[in-house]
């Protein structure tokens, strides 16, 4: 798999796990296309397609994403807190050691989080977006290193939670991401 496809894949997952926005919501079909290319057999693709059919691009679809994103990741219920520190630290709070660890990794690779990014460094979408950047730039060793040390331990904690939440779109994308992760591990090919 060439680097640009790997980058697109990581970016597609980041797009979903970032806070919903009209642009991504309107292009959900395109993301589904990409996933069905890479993991064609999975049932989740049909469920996602059905969701898109039921809710065509537009405000209603975006609101439906918000309806599930907020209790899943954002406020209150937080069925699957999107911050790695919450799982990989002792206290279950944000901005723990893992947040500084990934931040240091970003700096080591030549990146910083923009001041206006409005997100914590160990947010699921941020880590996935970072992987997309490394893949895009052909920084394969760093990608492998980041994935092993940071992203995978995080995904092992968070994906089961997202899957069992049963939240439309998110639980299906979590399943796809999990299969993708398993495939990569089987192949021993962390960068696709």
């Amino acid at each position, binding site marked *: 798999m060439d680097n*640009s496809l790997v*980058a*697109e894949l990581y*970016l*597609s997952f*980041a*797009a979903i796990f*970032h*806070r*919903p926005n009209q*642009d991504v919501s309107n*292009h959900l079909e*395109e*993301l589904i*296309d*990409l996933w069905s290319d890479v993991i064609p057999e999975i049932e989740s693709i049909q469920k996602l397609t059905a969701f898109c059919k039921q809710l065509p691009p537009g405000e209603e679809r*975006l*609101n439906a994403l*918000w*309806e599930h994103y*907020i*209790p899943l990741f*954002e*406020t*209150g*219920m*937080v069925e699957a*807190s999107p*911050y790695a520190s*919450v799982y990989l630290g002792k*206290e*279950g*709070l*944000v*901005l*723990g050691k893992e947040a*500084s660890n990934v931040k240091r990794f*970003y*700096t080591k690779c*030549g*990146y*910083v*989080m*923009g001041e*206006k*990014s*409005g*997100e*914590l460094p160990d947010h699921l*979408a*941020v880590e996935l*977006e*970072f992987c*997309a*950047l490394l893949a*895009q730039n052909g920084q394969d060793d760093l990608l492998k290193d980041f994935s092993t040390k940071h992203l995978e331990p995080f995904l092992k904690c968070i994906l089961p939670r997202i899957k069992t939440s049963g939240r439309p779109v998110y639980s299906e994308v979590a399943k796809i991401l999990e299969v993708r992760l398993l495939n990569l591990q089987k192949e021993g090919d962390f960068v696709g």
Partner: protein
Amino acid sequence: MKRRNFLKGILYGTGATAALVGGFGTFSKHSPLKAGATRAEGEEATVFSACEMCRNQCPIAVKVKDGKVCKIEGHPDDTAFGGVICARGNAGPSLLYDPQRIKKPMIRTGERGEGKFKEVSWDEAYTYITDKLYNVKDQFGGEAIALASRKGPHDWFFRSIGRALGSPNVFSHEATCPMTRSVALDTTFGTEGIQADYANTKYLISIGRNWFEGIHVAQTRAVSKALSKGAKLVVLDPRFSITAAKGEWLPIKGTTDLAFVMAMANIMIEENLYDQDFITHYSEGFEKWAEEVKDKTPEWAEKETGISKDTIIRITREFAAAKPNAILDFGWRTAYTPNDYQLRRAILIVNMMIGNLEVPGGYYKTKPANFLKNFPDLAGNAEGLGGVAQPGFPTPIKGRIDGTGVKGTPGQIIPAYDGAVGKIIESILTEEPYPIRAWLVHRFNPYISLTDSPRVLEAFKKLDLLVTCDVYMTDTAYFSDVILPECTYLERYEPIFDMSGLTPKYVIRQPAVPLVYPDTKPYWQIYKELGERMGLGDYFGFEDMADFINQQLAPTRLTFEKMKEIGVWTPSGMKGFYIRENDSKASLDNVLSTPSKKIEIFSEHVEEATKQGVPNYFSHPQPEEGTFRFVQGKVAVHTNAGTANVPILNELMPTNTLWMNPVSCRKLDLKDGDDIVISAGNYEQKGKLKMTEGIRPDSVFCYHGFGRISPELKRAFGKGINGNNLISNEIGIVGNAVTSTTFVRVRKA
């Protein structure tokens, strides 16, 4: 757009989404110049600030390591607080780093209470609120907009929005807590600025006040100090509180405290135990009080209160013997009965009968800089704070919904700054005297704090606009149209606050760390920006908080930098003083602000407002067999409606129970730990039973602040009993909530 062009566009910056290095703009290339801005690894710092886990604002020293708050201690230089804080103060970091905080502004997308929201930009949130508020104002007038918050430094900013819109209906939460005490202080002394000198008292009587669970660090320490010096403590409370455990517990029948206090006065007059000189010199109306208590004998009080007459006589004699260094405490949450303000007035009067004003171990007037101006020797110690000028606010077209300020009615003595917040619910539902259509709520949770919670929900549903600004998705936020995420006290500057006691004192709140969630904001910025969006920018004449603080400090010799460095300021070398310490006849003209310049035992104002110029006794019903008086109280590890979801505090105490005496348990065939149903009229709450000798057999008790209905308060949701769900929305004579007159039944679930 063709297949995957969207993603490619984002990756390579060719699509609609601008990208700095590809992606969603989260990352940019590392700039070595900016690297210096981050703290070096292992770097430690102490930031002096003020706690906000409750409203007491204790000065704190925040320990920061590697850019993270790792511990909070008391400010070491503040002698009143002694370098210590309470458990709630210690839990600050777990609130700061809680993944369940609100992170972005939200607008409701589903039905009210359905829990469906979308996140929006601050701009969208301000625009939405602006449009809705002006719609309400245009259709129903500015008075149809209500504002309510806990009292605090945010008031200046939050209230400016309502006042600038011409609304008279701006409320504090005080009616649910200490407002009857404020009414009593105002009408007796002409000022609310009176405090108790617990540390030096020799005899302390509490009427339900619970310093060891309703913690105010300085006051709790002062009471401990008095006890360690041998002071006697007597606690009247239907429940055996932690405070009662430290003294003599008198399990008084609920709502009969005034009988006890009037009998004390009766005994003191009969036995000539009171300070006649003080009464003659400083007060007026004593003879009317003497007449009123003439028949309030200990025998009579025994029947009312359930406390033996011998005990009442003994306690009164002991109290009088300790004069003037004794305190009959004026209370904190003072909302037991509809006429609670008369209990508080009677308490103050009995205190004055031992002449304990402006002496050590009694009551004293707080001594801020402006007070010192009256004493030429002391005036040089401090200058009062300045302020930011505001244009005049428009005069509201209609009077307030609660009648505050209306002469010849109880409204005459309701403090205008506070109002009767429970009336908002009545106005929304009954449209009397006119309807409230929009409600702005700042860090206040009416669902938990006001009585008759189901009625509160009904009211929410009738509103055109409900806006909540908070750190969590509270129960009220869950029913709101717009939710504004405030940052925590550990992330923001605030105006300097005046915390003067026996000496002037200024305290700063400043950020210990940058914003954890970058899209949260301090309240002053939120209301300034909202005000500007609404075209009300003239009311917010400051650039930022540094500018605001500089304007405050301009008349003083202090600077913003200095306050940041020291956290707390008091005049160096100045000792606290009591005006009558060395001269029992010293003038109290600077203390008393009543029309007569006397302590008004008989108050013309109160007479005009309620036809009870001196406190009269009113006997409240007692529970019949099979029913129980329902009482609530505070616990040391939570702050009322505010902290049930804070991670560490929730871990310490996730839920409450209903306390019941074993005698009553046996009658109802209930055991410790049973699942129970508590009912009052049509309302029911489920909970667990705690069987304990620490409650009168005719009463039941639970801690306040539990039974949360917002699923978004994940840790607290659905746990415990919400006492206010059982109490009807009775509003007391001076607008206070009424918390102790409800009877409940209890059965096995």
